[in-house]
């Protein structure tokens, strides 16, 4: 019912690259809603072009190219005036992000381990800040802390996580 074998395989491939594409797009378009929309367009595009994909070839690389094209299309629609990142910066970020993607799995794994080392409380803080893209100000207000203290806490947690991740990755490479 529904999907045939090839389609199912394709859906699976798309699912497997979603995390990577999501981070990749956010790098060039640092806005959750815009990045989500571009990701969605990318999925649609990938699906439309599924017959072009040759099984066994590097799906992630192809999907990344399609995502890049969607980013450029979005930038064009937006108009030069409203863009903050220059074309050159976007190109640089794109190649950096793509190169860095090779490590994404390891980094993600390290991050999850590092997250598990935080206290429940700390994790909850991160969850509330990153779940819906609400402003720290508003979250602080609704939870009865000052925006200042919440901001400092998040910053400290990000530093901790970053150091922990890098330590793990460093160990893994040793």
């Amino acid at each position: 019912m529904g999907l045939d074998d090839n389609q199912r395989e394709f859906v699976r491939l798309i699912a497997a690259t979603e995390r990577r594409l999501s981070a990749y797009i956010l790098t060039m378009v640092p806005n959750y809603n815009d990045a989500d929309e571009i990701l969605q367009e990318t999925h649609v595009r990938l699906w439309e072009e599924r017959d072009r994909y040759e099984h066994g070839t590097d799906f992630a690389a192809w999907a990344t190219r399609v995502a890049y094209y969607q980013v450029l299309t979005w930038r064009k629609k937006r108009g030069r005036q409203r863009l903050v990142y220059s074309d050159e910066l976007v190109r640089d970020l794109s190649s950096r992000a793509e190169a860095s993607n090779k490590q994404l799995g390891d980094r993600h794994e390290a991050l999850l381990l590092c997250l598990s080392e935080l206290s429940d409380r700390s994790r909850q803080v991160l969850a509330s800040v990153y779940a819906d893209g609400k402003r720290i100000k508003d979250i602080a207000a609704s939870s009865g802390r000052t925006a200042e203290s919440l901001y400092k806490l998040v910053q400290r947690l990000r530093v901790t996580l970053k150091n922990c991740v890098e330590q793990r990755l460093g160990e893994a490479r040793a």
Partner: protein
Amino acid sequence: MSETPEFNTGGHSDRQEISTPRLHAASDGGFEDLHRLITATLEDPNAAEHSELAKRLAADRRAQDLYVEYIQDTSALRAHALCEIDDGTPPTSTSSRGLAHGTESLTPGMSLGARMARQAGSRLAIAAGLLLMIGGALFSGQWLPFGAAAGDIATIVRVTDVAWRGDEQPEMRPLSRISSGQSLEFESGQLEIVFDTGVELLVTGPAAMSINSPLRVSASRGAYTARVGERGKGFTIDTPATSVTDLGTEFGVSIQSDQKTGVVVFDGAVDVTPTEQIDERNRQSPIRLTQGEAVAVSRGGDTHRIVAMYAGEYPTVAGRPGAGATPECLFEDVTDNLTSSGSKKFYRVVPRGFGEDTRAFVDRGHEWNGVDRSGMPEFLIGGDYVMPFNDNKFLDGLEVTFQLRSACDLYVLFDKNMAIPEWLQERFDDTGYSVGLDHGRGPFTGKAVTQLGPGQGINDEFSVWKRHVDGACEIVLGGAEMPTDKQLGWNMYGVVAVAHPKSEAAR
């Protein structure tokens, strides 16, 4: 001095907080500053910090690296956060993960904009876009972001008549996500799961299993077929009697009891480690099984050959014949005289399975097809057939015994390149029809790829020999003679049984 959290323009922190040792030359100040700029930008694209961030990145390549990693982590945190918020429980619980924000079903004809408006605030799952393309909601609309949430490592792809055990078990729908540590138990039916690593697992109930990690499943009941690509190498199924680790392959595991597990290799190879040999003192090397081999393994490490394997005993991954319950089969059993020689090869019996593009041998990728576009002889299609192994075909004195259940027409498909043996000549009639063999992967054909459909990529031709069988009986067939003048293109024969129209009704 305290930092103001209001994201005002210009000036960066002049606090140097050196707390933990770090690996990078960049000082904490650099990272903290980037954090400030990025956080502000993500909150509001119109913030002045956005331009400052752009300037910083354009000027400093090191900052670009930090930025890329920061965004990766942010993206992961965001995905992880979604699942924490969703049901309020940590990702490793067994609660159903099938809910996302916004539960309206998605219908065809909705514009992209409308759908996004409906799901505003929620992360769109990839399938939303796919729905439009496929023209209709596949399943009523509860989607999850794939691969995004921490702890989720697999997706349920198909649920066929599954009777879940107990009430505590939530109903898992197609496209529900499964997380690390989750258990599944059901009394009957079939479940197909796909791991994010690409491993496909087909489970036939009654089954009890838990998903331990992206590459490890432990099971106390059930029959499992795993198809594992490159990324899933090392995928392991732990059963009470033994552990089976694949090596990039398709294999089946059937838990027969606490003491015994059947293992069948359809493709590639696996390593089998009996449970009682896992202890250091006793350690022997794992048993390596390759394509076309099947053994029953006991806890203590004894193995014995499984000679005939009925499709249906081991679930087959989608697309292969024989999935589901075993219909009554004309072949009651298949045995040969090779067991004492140490062979572990098996015969696979596929009820009602013969047709275009069906696999011919257990140890090759070759497929049967019509020799030309007009297709295979009609009378063969849908017949019960036996997949033998292509190795050992020249064994002197080979005897394969087919036990037939009832009256039928028995067909032998014999390679035209080979001399016709006496046992075939004397007891069968050449029908004049032919069937083709399309080469797939194998030790002599390398990475050959099969084509789809009759008349495509046919490498060898087989003649169809027939013998009428009056009732239940045993038929013994022999081996084939090693050809003297050619090196390649020699194949074991195929065997197909077709019920008579009259006795069809009785089946």
